[in-house]
């Protein structure tokens, strides 16, 4: 019987059932792009002859990669996107200062919902599976076709089920679960497949932690990452503003939005993550994962806390918990970039900025920042960075000889204080009696 991914795809294809391997055409609920991918999409859209986009309420364009622009070329690309958005009356164009990193901003603003079918011209569009949407990254040309028709073709993916059972250690959260997963299956272990995450350790995560997990599904080659909606999900989306558009597929009830008990998974992984500690992905692949204890002591020039993976409020609060009362090592730069204006404001209001500033951090405006080597903390030759982002490819954050170690916010914060890769306990002390908890 069908998996959650198959149910969402079938509903949007207007058929009762789809099977892995089948090619379908499906209606899209939402499409998104940023200033890197939207200008190309706009150029290709013009060639379709459609004239107008299929629905000006359902297209989200956010300038988040290079903004606020530090060079003329980036500004020119932003301008192209802005002009297209105005011509097409896009209701979901968000200007600098009023937008954040797309994958943090759209769920936060209630613009993605369980059961949605979404394509985005950005590979981390898979993030929205954290609220039970089937969301996948496409290129600009695919997006352009979607802008014109409101549809996309899909090969129905096989679903891989990942059960995480047990209680991870204090300071280990969604980032550590997904790094653990990628470390085990490799960077193409889920190629073309939908990754469905479940089990007790995933149920224990907040929705933010689930968004972090699904965010990195693409780092295992996944087409989508999905967590079945539960009460936490409904509470999360229920506390957001309403959006002025619904879903374009056959209506799906809350009961529909889960895989059947006899769902046809291509593979089921059952992992005991009891006592799993913080994980680190070493250069130059997200699958080169080791427990933090094995890389302790590697000296770092920079620590970056932010990105669509770990730039949410909960991530900043966790980093602050470790940083409180400490300063970054003299040779280590600490850069903190809250992912959206709402997160920025809350972090400021709740005293996190005091902790970051006392620690010697530079706090940036909502943006992708240095994650992909764009701005606000690009690495020089031979420099080494612990980053809460998602990719550690050669040259990803700057010079080709620089190195990126991926980790969660607690390891990043501890590493800033120590000036070398460190476990959170090295700074925050041992776990208090009765403590623990899955961040």
């Amino acid at each position, binding site marked *: 019987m069908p998996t959650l991914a198959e149910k969402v795809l079938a509903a949007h294809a207007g058929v009762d059932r789809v099977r892995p391997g089948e*090619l379908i055409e499906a209606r899209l609920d939402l499409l998104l792009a940023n200033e*890197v*991918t939207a*200008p*190309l999409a706009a*150029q*290709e859209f013009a*060639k*379709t*002859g*459609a*004239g107008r986009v299929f629905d000006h309420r359902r297209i989200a364009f956010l300038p988040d*990669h*290079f903004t606020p622009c530090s*060079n003329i*070329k*980036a500004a020119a*690309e932003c301008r192209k996107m802005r002009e297209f958005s105005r011509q097409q009356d896009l209701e979901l164009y968000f200007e600098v200062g009023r937008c954040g990193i797309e994958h943090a901003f759209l769920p936060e603003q209630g613009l993605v919902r369980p059961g949605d079918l979404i394509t*985005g*011209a*950005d*590979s981390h*569009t898979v993030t929205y599976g954290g609220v039970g949407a089937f969301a996948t*990254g*496409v*290129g*600009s*040309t*695919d997006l*352009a*076709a979607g802008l*014109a*028709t409101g549809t996309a*073709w899909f*090969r129905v993916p096989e679903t891989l089920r990942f059960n995480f059972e047990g209680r991870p250690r204090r300071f280990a959260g969604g980032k550590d679960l997904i790094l653990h997963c990628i470390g085990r299956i490799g*960077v*193409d272990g889920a*190629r*073309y497949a939908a990754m469905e995450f479940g089990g007790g350790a995933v149920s224990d995560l907040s929705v933010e932690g689930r968004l972090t997990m699904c965010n990195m599904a*693409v780092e295992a*080659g996944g*087409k989508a990452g999905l967590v079945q909606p539960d009460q936490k999900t409904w509470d999360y989306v229920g506390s957001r503003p309403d959006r002025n558009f619904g879903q374009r597929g056959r209506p799906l009830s809350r009961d529909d939005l889960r895989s059947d008990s006899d769902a046809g998974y291509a593979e089921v992984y059952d992992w005991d993550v009891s006592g799993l500690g913080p994980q680190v992905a070493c250069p130059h*692949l997200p699958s080169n994962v080791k427990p933090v204890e094995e890389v302790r002591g590697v000296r770092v020039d920079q620590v970056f806390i932010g990105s669509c993976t770990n730039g949410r409020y909960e991530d900043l609060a966790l980093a602050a918990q470790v940083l409180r009362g400490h300063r970054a090592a003299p040779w280590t730069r600490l850069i903190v970039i809250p992912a959206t204006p709402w997160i920025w404001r809350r972090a400021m209001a709740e005293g996190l900025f005091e902790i970051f500033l006392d620690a010697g951090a530079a706090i940036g405006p909502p943006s992708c920042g240095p994650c*992909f*080597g*764009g701005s606000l903390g*690009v690495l020089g030759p031979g420099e080494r960075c612990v980053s809460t982002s998602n*990719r550690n*490819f*050669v*040259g*990803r954050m700057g*010079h*080709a000889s620089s190195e990126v170690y991926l980790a969660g916010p607690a390891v990043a914060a501890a590493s800033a204080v120590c000036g070398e890769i460190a476990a959170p306990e090295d700074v925050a002390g041992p776990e208090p009696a009765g403590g623990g908890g899955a961040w």
Partner: protein
Amino acid sequence: MVKNPAEGELIAGAARVLGDNVNTDDIIPGRYLNTTDPAELAGHLFEDFSPELSRALSPGEVIVAGDNFGCGSSREHAPIGLKARGVACVVAGSFARIFFRNAVNIGLPILECPGAAAACVPGEEAVVDTARGRVSFPGSGKTFEATPLPPFIRELIAAGGLIPYVASRIRAPERKPC
């Protein structure tokens, strides 16, 4: 040299052999994503990955790569740059899915062919038959069967890519001034 891969003409060129997991940051570093000019992108290909390759990659070459080619970012700038540089075809053991779609959509010939990279001698002639799904190396006499493209994908390629395909379906009525 090929005219239209959908019609089954052969693509032949010198093989440029690459390993597994060549990602889109390797193909075009993120700092160049502030432009969409194909010629400019073509000039920066593989700059961090291998300065030697970045200089030497020549029009007409066939990239023969290992598994998971094009993993990472959704940037269409990667296949656009490869096409603008004159790369005739990319053969890989497997492709990351977004790169696969992007290449099809913009008309960069690609073929999934397990085993070819391991057997290929750098610089030898590679002959690719995208319609039949076959890669051969005449020098060594080796031939590899490739995963055939699904009919729908071949239809897209035959239409000239996704945009002409969509345009043919839209046939937008001409707007007349009122």
